[in-house]
């Protein structure tokens, strides 16, 4: 027998005194992906709102794309949960028999409401485009575009004004809802008082800020990549502005992440003793080395330099996707360190376990890769229906200011 105890495909190496019911990491890879995907959704929606609500005109080229991007990821946000829990057919019970005292059951309603809102905002923003495509196409596409334009081809000034009013209403409630969607995910962890790594009121805030960061980074990364591969022109001004917003949100995100650890350290309660052993024990590499030193400090400096100094377009377009990708990895590592990390310490407050995810199996690495590829495929399919880029002559939408 090696010094490892195997449990259901995962391997836990035990050190010090670990309660037998703390051996197994129950919330594994799928629960790492769930806040990661919802975070990207919330962040992408905020990029779109920066143009549609706050009138940041430089972000116009990605204003529509970020909504479709958010929808593609939102469509897959529940998959990790369904895979983790099993019995997807029972998920509707959550909606049929609502439980107001269950924090977890709340996700069914928050997610559904946000999904409905996002779809409607997209349909109202795209209505003029849908009407144009409806009139141009034939067969099934004609029926589809007619349906997506609510079978109303009226694009008179009154109709456009009405649409704008609806869009402003939806965007207005959309921002707090996007914040609630992800703040809620942070609350789910922050509300678990038995776990000193999670139980902090800062948790919803850190989750929300990292969501904004991952959404903006995802948009910048995919925008540049798609434009490069399809040989289209990249709006560098838009990339520069996005980089500035990314830096701004990342300053807040990174500072709060560090403040959370520092507060524990300064208060020096018995929780710190547990967390210290965890952060300098099984989490040392994934937290200090990867999340903090490599994927936070380096992008932090690069983003600052890119935002503060004037560089040639070539330099921006070279560093922007790299730094965005690093930020995407940082947020994934943060989810890992919070979700899995919180389960690597025993309630004995003495022992730790280590966790290695399985490759195959329902919650394995292979399924995780599939789930992360699925939104890209969905985005590709959606791009065939909804033109991703604002067409200069067809655009008759204006930011609502």
């Amino acid at each position: 027998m090696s010094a490892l105890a195997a449990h259901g495909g995962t391997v836990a190496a035990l050190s010090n005194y670990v309660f037998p019911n703390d051996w197994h990491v129950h919330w594994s890879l799928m629960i790492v992906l769930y806040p990661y995907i919802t975070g990207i959704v919330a962040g992408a929606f905020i990029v779109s709102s920066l143009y549609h609500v706050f009138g940041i005109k430089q972000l116009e080229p990605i204003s529509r794309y970020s909504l479709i991007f958010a929808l593609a990821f939102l469509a897959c946000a529940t998959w990790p949960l369904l895979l983790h829990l099993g019995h997807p057919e029972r998920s509707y019970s959550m909606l049929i028999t609502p439980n107001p005292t269950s924090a977890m059951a709340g996700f069914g309603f928050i997610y559904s409401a946000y999904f409905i809102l996002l779809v409607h905002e997209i349909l109202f923003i795209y209505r003029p485009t849908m009407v144009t495509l409806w009139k141009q196409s034939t067969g099934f596409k004609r029926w589809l575009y007619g349906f997506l334009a609510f079978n109303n081809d009226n694009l008179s000034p009154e109709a456009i004004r009405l649409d704008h009013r609806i869009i402003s209403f939806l965007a207005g409630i959309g921002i707090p809802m996007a914040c609630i969607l992800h703040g809620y995910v942070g609350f789910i962890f922050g509300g678990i008082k038995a776990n000193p790594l999670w139980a902090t009121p800062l948790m919803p805030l850190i989750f929300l800020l990292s969501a904004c960061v991952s959404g903006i980074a995802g948009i910048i990364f995919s925008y540049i990549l798609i434009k490069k591969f399809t040989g289209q022109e990249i709006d560098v001004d838009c990339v520069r502005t996005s980089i500035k917003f990314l830096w701004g949100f990342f300053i807040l995100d990174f500072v709060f992440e560090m403040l959370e650890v520092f507060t524990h350290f300064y208060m020096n309660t018995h929780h710190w003793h547990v967390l210290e052993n965890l952060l300098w024990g099984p989490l040392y590499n994934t937290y200090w080395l990867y999340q903090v030193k490599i994927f936070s400090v380096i992008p932090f400096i690069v983003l600052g330099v890119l935002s503060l100094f004037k560089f040639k377009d070539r330099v921006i377009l070279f560093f922007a996707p790299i730094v965005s990708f690093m930020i995407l990895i940082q947020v994934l590592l943060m989810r890992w360190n919070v979700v899995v990390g919180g389960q690597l310490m025993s309630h004995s407050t003495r022992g730790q376990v280590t966790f290695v995810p399985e490759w195959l199996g329902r919650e394995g690495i292979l399924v995780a890769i599939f789930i992360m590829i699925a939104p890209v495929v969905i985005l590709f399919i959606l791009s065939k229906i909804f033109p991703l880029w604002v067409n200069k002559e067809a655009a008759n939408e204006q930011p609502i200011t």
Partner: protein
Amino acid sequence: MHSESKTKYYSHLVKLIIAMIVLGVAGFFARQLFSPESMGEYGHYRGADIEDQKNVPVRLQTNESCFQCHKPVRRIHKKGVHKSVSCEVCHGPYADHVKDGKKIGMLPVKKGKEITHLCLRCHNKVIQARPRTSIKMVGMPEHLQEKKVRIENTCDQCHMVHDPLLWINQAKEMIGIKEEM
């Protein structure tokens, strides 16, 4: 194109509101239809589930159920240091062996290396969370080397599994060793 349109400028909003009302009403009826009948009878769960849980067949029993037939083992087991270990921990669930007072099948008998694996489930030194004082923890093959026996020996060659110290103490008595194990 704008002036050509025959539809009212607000018709899409009206359609949407109608669709939402229709879906809302459909949802209300769907809830009535799909909600379990006894939902909320005692609390936020299906009342009939209590009956379902009561009807789940009992698979595990106590040691006394086994001892009703296995009398010789009873004598040994109850005296030894394994007296608090349930028979089913090693032999498997009672329900696979007896149903309605009749024997319906044999429980699997562990042999050779399987026995060592079974013992190490509780006695393996790598299980850090075990209380060291009440359970003898051993490492393999160090334990065999320390006791100067063949490395391929299985636990049951020296230890009587129902009373692990029975033969050891008997042997010690025979050769006159007084010290504790």
